[in-house]
């Protein structure tokens, strides 16, 4: 060791480093880092481990420090903004100052942590979980299950001490309708970093005995709105969504619904409301039973009364149609009797008319017969008159003609008119051929008789 060689005390060196660092890093910086462990000490100060990972490997690591008063302030704002206390294993955006302490070495003194960044991270996780569930088709899986008619056997995931559990139990046990529920508690953390895993474990237990249960409820209460971001955890949400029984949640008053609440079969804001929902399911079952009795009574009576009415109508109808039938036949028979009356009356009229007409014919034809004979007789009479007178007349005419002939033939009358009669030997000459020349003939006139001799004889035709 040389004399010139200055020997520093450790304190001198450390002080020098501190001075250098303090000079070099006077500003504050916003640093994004994962807070692995918070390491809060009884004094209230925290000495978190900060690190950065790349591909799962730690690539940077450093200690941090949060003084008690800062921590209280930061945590307060987290609860206000994020509705979660500051928690480990989360990436935070921190306002830091590089500090060096002679005793404790290098660290990042955390002055402030941005709750909005964390809020964003939570939101990111929420979206991430939803996206994955959607991709796996699980987002509606639980909601698509058939809800049991009676959710009477309930697997309860809660904590023994939970105020929410006692609210829930009270609602179910003190129902005034005597509805009977069977509940079995599967204890679990309900918030914070351990909750997700704890609930998943409980669910897997329940699944083992799922035949004994109708629904699963997750109830939490009294813890305020803080510490619910675990319900965005993908694994938990997946377990809930794919659970074979309907999972009902009643975990608190979160402003933003957590994913678990969104994908649960049903979410109630409070355990009390969840209890009332189950009671309502019983009502939904019970009321139709009561109504069924009423409906059956009313409609059975209706059916019976309708049938009574129909029967009555048929009975009245029977009476009516029977009477009508008999009445119709009576009427018909009366009609027939009337037809007999009118028919016979008409027949008699016709027959009487026929009698009158035949009598008239008899009279008429008799009188015609008589008058015909009479006229025949008259004709004969007339003929007799006529013909007998004519016979007389005819004879008269014949006589007159004969008389006239005789008168013409009387020789006296002939001679008076200047004619003469020539005789030969006393006889009238009719044939001159008998006369010869020299024969003596006599010519008789009116007053005289001449005697003469035939001189010549010639034929008149030759002249």
């Amino acid at each position, binding site marked *: 060791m040389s004399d010139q060689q200055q020997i520093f005390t450790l304190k001198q060196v450390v002080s020098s480093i501190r001075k250098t660092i303090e000079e070099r890093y006077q500003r504050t910086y916003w640093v994004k880092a994962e807070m692995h462990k918070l390491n809060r000490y009884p004094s209230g100060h925290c000495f978190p481990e900060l690190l950065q990972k790349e591909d799962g490997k730690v690539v940077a690591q450093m200690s941090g420090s949060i003084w008690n008063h800062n921590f209280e302030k930061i945590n307060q704002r987290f609860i206000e903004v994020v509705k979660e206390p500051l928690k480990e294993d989360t990436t935070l955006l921190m306002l830091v100052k590089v500090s060096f302490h002679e005793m404790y070495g290098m660290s990042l003194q955390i002055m402030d942590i941005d709750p909005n960044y964390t809020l964003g991270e939570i939101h990111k996780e929420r979206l991430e979980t939803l996206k994955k569930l959607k991709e796996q088709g699980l987002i509606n899986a639980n909601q698509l299950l058939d809800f049991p008619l009676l959710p009477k056997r309930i697997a309860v995931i809660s904590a023994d001490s939970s105020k929410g559990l006692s609210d829930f139990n009270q609602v179910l046990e003190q129902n005034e309708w005597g509805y009977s529920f069977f509940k079995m508690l599967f204890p679990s953390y309900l918030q914070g970093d351990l909750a997700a895993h704890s609930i998943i474990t409980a669910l897997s237990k329940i699944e083992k005995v799922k035949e004994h249960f109708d629904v699963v409820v997750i109830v939490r209460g009294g813890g305020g709105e803080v510490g619910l971001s675990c319900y965005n955890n993908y694994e938990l949400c997946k377990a809930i969504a794919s659970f074979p029984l309907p999972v009902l949640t009643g975990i608190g008053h979160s402003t933003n619904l957590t994913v678990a609440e969104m994908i649960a079969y049903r979410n109630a804001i409070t355990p009390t409301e969840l209890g009332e929902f189950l009671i309502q399911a019983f009502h939904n079952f019970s009321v139709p039973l009561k109504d069924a009795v009423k409906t059956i009574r009313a409609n059975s009576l209706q059916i019976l009364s309708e049938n009574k009415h129909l029967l009555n109508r048929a009975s009245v109808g029977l009476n009516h149609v029977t009477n009508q039938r008999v009445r119709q036949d009576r009427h018909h028979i009366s009609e027939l009797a009337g037809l007999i009356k009118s028919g016979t009356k008409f027949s008699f009229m016709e027959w009487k008319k026929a009698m009158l007409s035949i009598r008239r014919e008899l009279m008429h034809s008799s009188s015609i017969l008589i008058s015909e004979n009479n006229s025949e007789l008259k004709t004969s*009479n007339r003929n*007799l*008159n006529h013909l*007998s*007178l004519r016979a*007389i007349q005819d*004879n*008269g005419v*014949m*006589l007159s003609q*004969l*008389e006239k*002939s*005789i008168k013409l*033939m*009387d*020789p*006296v009358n002939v001679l008076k008119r200047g004619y003469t*009669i020539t*005789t030969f030997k*006393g*006889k*009238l000459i*009719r044939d001159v051929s008998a006369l010869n020349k020299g024969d003596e003939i006599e010519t*008789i006139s009116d007053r005289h008789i001449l005697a003469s001799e035939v001189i010549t004889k010639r034929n008149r035709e030759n002249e």
Partner: protein
Amino acid sequence: MSDKLKYTEAFEELQSIVNDIEEGEITVDELSKKVKRASELIKICKSKLTETEEDVNEILKELEE
């Protein structure tokens, strides 16, 4: 003139006389005799006829009454 002679016989004789005259070789004396007979027969017939006519008229008149 004989009333015993019937109209028919008289009429026939008359007819026969007229025939004889018409056909005949009768002397003028005979002729006059025949004509005389014919005239008698005509009278007889006329009288019979008149008688019959009166009878018939009477019967017929009676019938009409």
